[in-house]
């Protein structure tokens, strides 16, 4: 036991002291933030801002058609006749020309759009809805109603979901994002720390130090010590990241205390909000606070560690079979393929978290560490969690046993290429 502890210590300390560990621990949260915001950016923003020139001969819509910053649409107002404006567009100064002829409110017809290329659906529907809103507003005003009355009429409907299993009110968007992020983190952990174990094993083998070490300790203890040591490095890194994020959150909370207070007000009385977006944000914030973070984080930690132990043992086995130059890609593939498959599954199941695929893949230990973490925020029935936990614990006991049998032979074989058939014989 004492000696396993020594192995763990060495694996842990030599890694944590490394410059690369310190740098990644500090920079990874920034890189992750950049990665996710760029993803969100790519999803929600069109490629380039569209510059739309509006020639409004009716005079009804001047300054009423708004930019759509989210959709990348910028609106400019032109003057003069249609042909001069058309020239402006053809010169490339604008991407499109919206021509609104003289019209009356009862018959808004003859609106045309000119562009070199076909207009995007998003742009079209944005322009249409802006004009429809304005015409509706004008028509209502014409009928004698006041604008105050109008804003009171404006309803704000949001479907609020209750996860049956968790018994908490939830938000699909938050669940999707949280699920995706957590699954992605577990995916990264399996890869980064799994290959770290693999490299560490094969390094000891090619270094020959393994014989010296094995004369003092049993192979399975050396392997376990290594897996636990590297696992603790991963855990340390995540705890540090958690601390950094909480500190950042705390600092932001302090800086934007006033705005947050206001937002909280809006979530109680959405009518006070200056815009729909603000009200929505307020509700999202409120939902974020209503998420059962404790159970979510403990679930995440379990699958993080369980998945790590399940796969690290397999990676260790591969590392032990590796030679200096032997081709291990095919062996690597056996272990990495289910991990990659799992992240694909979890990408699809965030839109259908209770499908059969989701249920089964979150119980099978090859996939459960990633798929189940993706499902956790949606609320998962207790029986599925119990099955999944048991399967994963049994799974990593099995992979450790299996890996130990491969490891103790593989680690001592040198100077020849090891085939899968041979490995099978060792088991």
């Amino acid at each position, binding site marked *: 036991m004492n000696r396993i502890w020594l192995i763990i210590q060495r694996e842990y300390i030599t890694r944590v002291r490394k410059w690369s560990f310190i740098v990644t621990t500090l920079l990874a949260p920034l890189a992750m933030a950049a990665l996710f915001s760029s993803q969100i950016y790519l999803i929600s923003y069109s490629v380039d801002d569209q510059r739309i020139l509006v020639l409004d001969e009716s005079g009804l819509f001047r300054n009423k058609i708004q930019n759509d910053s989210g959709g990348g649409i910028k609106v400019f107002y032109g003057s003069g006749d249609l042909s001069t404006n058309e020239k402006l567009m053809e010169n490339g100064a604008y991407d499109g020309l919206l021509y609104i002829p003289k019209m009356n409110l009862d018959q808004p017809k003859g609106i045309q759009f000119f562009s070199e290329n076909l207009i995007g659906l998003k742009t079209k529907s944005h322009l249409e809805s802006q004009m429809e809103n304005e015409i509706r507003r004008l028509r209502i005003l014409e009928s004698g109603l006041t604008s105050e009355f109008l804003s009171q009429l404006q309803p704000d409907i949001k479907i609020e979901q209750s996860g049956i299993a968790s018994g908490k009110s939830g938000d699909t968007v938050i669940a999707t994002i949280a699920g995706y992020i957590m699954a992605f983190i577990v995916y990264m952990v399996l890869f980064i720390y799994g290959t770290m174990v693999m490299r560490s094993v094969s390094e000891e083998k090619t270094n020959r130090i393994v*014989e010296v070490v094995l*004369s003092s300790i049993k192979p399975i203890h050396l392997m376990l010590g290594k897996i636990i040591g590297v696992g603790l490095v991963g855990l340390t890194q995540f705890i540090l990241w958690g601390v950094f994020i909480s500190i950042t959150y705390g600092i932001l909370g302090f800086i934007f205390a006033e705005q947050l207070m206001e937002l909280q007000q809006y979530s109680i009385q959405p009518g006070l909000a200056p815009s729909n977006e603000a009200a929505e944000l307020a509700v999202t914030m409120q939902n974020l606070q209503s998420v059962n973070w404790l159970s979510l984080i403990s679930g995440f930690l379990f699958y993080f560690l369980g998945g790590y132990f399940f796969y690290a043992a397999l990676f260790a086995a591969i590392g032990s079979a590796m030679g200096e130059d032997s081709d291990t890609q095919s062996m690597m593939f056996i272990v990495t393929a289910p991990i990659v498959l799992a992240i694909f599954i979890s990408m699809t199941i965030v839109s259908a978290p209770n499908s059969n695929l989701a249920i089964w893949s979150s119980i099978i230990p090859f996939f459960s560490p990633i798929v189940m973490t993706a499902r956790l925020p949606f609320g998962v029935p207790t029986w599925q969690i119990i099955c999944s936990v048991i399967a994963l614990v049994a799974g990593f006991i099995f992979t450790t046993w299996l890996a130990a049998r491969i490891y103790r032979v593989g680690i001592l074989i040198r100077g020849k290429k090891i085939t899968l058939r041979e490995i099978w014989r060792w088991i």
Partner: protein
Amino acid sequence: MPEVIFDNIKKAYAETLALNNVSFTIPNQKIFGLLGPNGAGKTTLIRILTNIIEADSGYIHINDRKIRGFNPLKFGYMPEERGLYKKMKVGEQLLYLCQLKGLSKKEAKSKIDLWIDKFDIQDWWNKRIHDLSKGMQQKVQFIATVCHNPGLLILDEPFSGLDPINTELIKEEIFKLAAEGKTIIFSTHRMEQVEEICSHIALINKGEMILDGEVEALKNRFKKNIFKVVVDNEQLEIKVNIQCLKQENNTFWFQLNEGFTSNQLLQSILDQEVEIKSFEEEYPSINEIFIEQVNPNRHE
């Protein structure tokens, strides 16, 4: 200090029989040579003794204690292909390996300091292994093997890759350790080193035991009654029926047949008008004994 007896050790890998009922005794406080060509089974035997693998059958007796499986003896093992953690510093590496041997950190530190002083390498403590030359790494490896003061030392090809100066240095240390009463197992395929260092040997080939015993006794047992004579003349006529095996200038080799003594040979030379520069019996080298034992037909 231990006496180690291998008793009918058998070990097979998938298709090959690595050791076939190997038995021999490693006497207490001696330098013992484990000899055999590459692939003879030396490393397998050592790995069994060092708990790295288990024998399929057979026992090891240590000081009359029968051991099956784990060998609880305090030993130091230097494997053939040396290995250290390349990126670790010398000091922490030695501490780690020493602690793995069961020493506390404090004990380990004081023991290592003794050796560091002995080799006069105090300024290496914070150097990383990959910044050291091969000879320097060997010294570190040697310290790692001996610093926990084991009664039994197992050195697998300890001189491979060493330059003559470092070979001498390590050799000296091995003799010192032997003089302190440690039992040393020295495994090699280089027979000439054995005669210089070992007092006892065991010869194995292809997993089979060939012979074992004291070096001098073995040489006596396999001697061929050959005498080397150096005289001041290139002509030498022997009257009695003694065969001259070969001649190189003034040096002659004679083999005594059954019934003749060395005195008869000497007398026959004295009868001639030559001056004898030297007269000695020639013993076979371990290498010759080995070749003869492995291929008994080759020399007939």
